[in-house]
């Protein structure tokens, strides 16, 4: 019976995938993509993941997990599988899978969709599950500790500094996305600002008034958030109030920095934790609603399967299909960041090794499904509208009129009238050059929802989607700043002991300020960049994230090689090899490409020459110096990421060589077997 279901799924999935891949010339229905996704995930989970846990990892339900052996009722707690799943998914769920696919849709729907599906089933889900398992076998060791113990000091250093650098870039780019969504939009700004006191109110509610009543608190919070969306509309229509919330990019960037600083030094229960509850419920609710709406509406994708921009001339970001589609999708297919969650907190909760597949592989499947939804929402839009929203004006000729002419000449017809009507319908002044992915995702989501639930609500749905994304971004922003703060405090503590005390206020403030300055710098330069900043920061983030995934996969491969599982080392070794190729190519091009739109160094040289020749307009000349410095910093960071990745890979190969030669290796630090005391826990 199991096999029959499996075969049926494989057949349906194969039909759906080939339907997507072979369909040319005529529009394809979004339902095909949804079907292909569900089938592939199910096959991956039931067969590939089951095979890996049985053969490669040899999970053993009779083996007591650290949660059982070290149960202290605080951080080590044996927890039911769905509770762990909820914890883990809430931690890995962020705005990344919403943004990456939206940007990658510039190549057409096909490349991004295929990579989201194959990358997650064969790469991302495997990475999350394997790291979760390895950390569980090592008493919940963190990725950095495992890197040090299994690879050596280079690996440990790489994991530590890689994490800090990626955090800084991630927060900067997310801050930029939220700034671009709020820029000169009183409605969006008022709604996003309102989410802050709402989250604090829920924090007090769950802490003081009705402690631990998660459902009540979340229900009240979500009701208030929906009210804030509607209320933002009233603010927008009020002649005086709207001016309070109408700000330009730099002002909003300063606000986001101030917010990040304050949020990172407040206690977690006040703002961070309650908003995290709200955002997780919102994400699940919205994704389920989107899936239902797509099944009901069966909308057709208007984006072609492949666009002309696979040649690297895309207006949203520059660079060819290979390697940049794999860098841009980032978190929806494979995310190195997840390995930090999968080692550390989650393994201390796992009650039995039998749950590793659901928690590790399953959570990432759901996250990848979110990315598929974002891809559908982006490719439902008229391509002309999609490109007009997501490209900077500088990339399309400098003005809205020039932009529509350029896009129409490229074969993506759109008019200023059409854009203005759409902007009026969603309640915005303009939708041109709203880079960062959030506004276009919001337009896509709003058009799906409003076609099911009534067209007059388009503006409400649009701002709901903006709020939905902003809530995630702000959560990642202050959680990331907080993590960065702990890391900086840890490092400063080596210099002078009191600076390492995590609750000593001068140290807290100093470390938080350092971290905020770090990402604030990249955010600010992104905001003043006439090309929108996203085209620089997002690839940098993608490279960093794939580098971290490479480190995680290298650790896993090294452990397989050391523990006599060399014949299975391709399970992590192949995704690692692919990531190494992709990341190295992308980083190389970002460093040394002679095209100023792709290469950071070429870009800096090009700016310098244009500035010297007086060929830049006044506004561009004013910021050119800052942009040049920034491009060189970006180049240095890229080189650093590349070096770190290869140092770790070479370290892994060295271990593989020694294992092959039969030379002695430091034994893998697995905790010894102890039989579980839980009867029948394997079936629970």
């Amino acid at each position: 019976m199991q096999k029959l279901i499996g075969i049926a799924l494989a057949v349906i999935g194969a039909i759906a995938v080939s339907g997507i891949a072979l369909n040319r010339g005529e529009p394809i229905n979004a339902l095909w993509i949804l079907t292909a996704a569900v089938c592939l995930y199910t096959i991956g989970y039931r067969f590939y993941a089951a095979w890996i846990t049985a053969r490669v990892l040899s999970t053993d339900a009779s083996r007591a997990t650290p949660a059982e052996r070290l149960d202290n009722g605080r951080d080590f707690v044996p927890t039911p599988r769905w509770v762990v799943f909820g914890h883990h998914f809430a931690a890995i769920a962020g705005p990344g899978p919403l943004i990456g696919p939206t940007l990658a849709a510039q190549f057409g729907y096909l490349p991004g969709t295929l990579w989201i599906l194959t990358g997650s089933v064969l790469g991302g889900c495997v990475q999350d599950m394997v790291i979760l398992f390895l950390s569980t076998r090592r008493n919940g060791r963190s990725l950095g500790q495992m890197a040090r113990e299994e690879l050596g000091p280079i690996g440990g250093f790489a994991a530590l500094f890689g994490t800090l650098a990626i955090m800084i870039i991630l927060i900067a780019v997310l801050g930029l996305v939220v700034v671009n969504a709020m820029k000169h939009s009183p409605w969006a700004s008022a709604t996003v600002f309102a989410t802050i006191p709402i989250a604090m109110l829920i924090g007090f509610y769950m802490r003081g008034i009705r402690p631990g009543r998660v459902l009540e608190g979340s229900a009240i919070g979500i009701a208030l958030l929906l009210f804030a969306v509607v209320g933002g509309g009233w603010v927008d229509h009020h002649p005086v109030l709207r001016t309070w919330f109408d700000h330009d990019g730099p002002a909003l960037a300063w606000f986001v920095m101030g917010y990040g600083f304050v949020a990172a030094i407040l206690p977690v229960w006040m703002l961070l934790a309650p908003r995290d509850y709200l955002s997780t419920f919102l994400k699940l609710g919205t994704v389920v609603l989107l899936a239902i709406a797509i099944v009901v509406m069966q909308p057709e994708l208007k984006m072609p399967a492949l666009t002309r921009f696979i040649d690297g001339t895309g207006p949203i970001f520059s660079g060819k299909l290979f390697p940049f589609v794999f860098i841009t999708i980032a978190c929806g297919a494979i995310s190195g960041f997840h390995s930090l969650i999968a080692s550390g907190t989650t393994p201390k909760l796992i009650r039995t090794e039998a749950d590793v597949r659901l928690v590790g592989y399953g959570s990432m499947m759901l996250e990848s499904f979110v990315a598929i939804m974002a891809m559908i929402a982006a490719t439902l839009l008229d391509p002309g509208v999609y490109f007009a929203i997501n490209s900077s004006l500088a990339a399309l000729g400098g003005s809205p009129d020039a932009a529509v002419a350029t896009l129409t000449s490229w074969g993506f017809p759109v008019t200023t009238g059409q854009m203005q009507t759409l902007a009026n319908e969603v309640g915005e002044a303009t939708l041109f050059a709203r880079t960062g992915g959030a506004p276009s995702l919001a337009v896509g989501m709003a058009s799906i929802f409003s076609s099911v639930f009534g067209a007059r609500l388009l503006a409400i749905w649009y701002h709901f989607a903006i709020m939905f994304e902003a809530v995630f971004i702000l959560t990642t922003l202050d959680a990331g700043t907080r993590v960065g703060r702990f890391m900086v405090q840890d490092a400063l503590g080596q210099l002078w002991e009191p600076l390492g005390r995590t609750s000593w206020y001068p140290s807290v403030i100093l470390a938080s300020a350092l971290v905020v300055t770090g990402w604030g710098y990249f955010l600010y330069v992104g905001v003043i960049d006439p090309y929108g900043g996203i085209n620089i920061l997002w690839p940098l983030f993608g490279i960093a994230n794939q580098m971290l995934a490479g480190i995680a996969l290298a650790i896993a491969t090294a452990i397989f090689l050391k523990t006599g599982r060399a014949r299975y080392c391709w399970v992590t070794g192949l995704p690692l090899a692919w990531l190494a190729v992709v990341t190295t190519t992308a980083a190389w091009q970002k460093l040394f490409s002679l095209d100023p739109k792709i290469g950071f160094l070429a870009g800096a040289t090009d700016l310098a020459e244009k500035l010297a020749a007086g060929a830049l307009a006044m506004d561009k000349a004013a910021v050119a110096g800052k942009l040049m410095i920034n491009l060189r910093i970006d180049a240095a960071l890229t080189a650093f990421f590349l070096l770190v990745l290869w140092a770790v890979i070479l370290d892994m190969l060295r271990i593989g060589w020694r294992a092959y030669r039969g030379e002695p290796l430091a034994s893998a630090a697995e905790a010894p077997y102890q039989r579980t005391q839980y009867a029948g826990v394997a079936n629970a």
Partner: protein
Amino acid sequence: MPDRLIVEAIGRALAGFGARLRDIVTGASGLSAYEQYLAHLRAHHPEVQPMSREEFFRNDLTARWEGVRKCC
């Protein structure tokens, strides 16, 4: 009466499915976390005085937000 048997079987299947769905939703959303903790203590550490609901959620919060807790 095979009809009744079929109806009952379907009813049981639905009830089973409903119970499973409820477990998934309450579990994954953290709604039943405290109850599950009490059950765990009763079953495995009967000698330990359980934390109150307030204490439990306070602890849970600290444990949840230690280290890297949010991704992209």
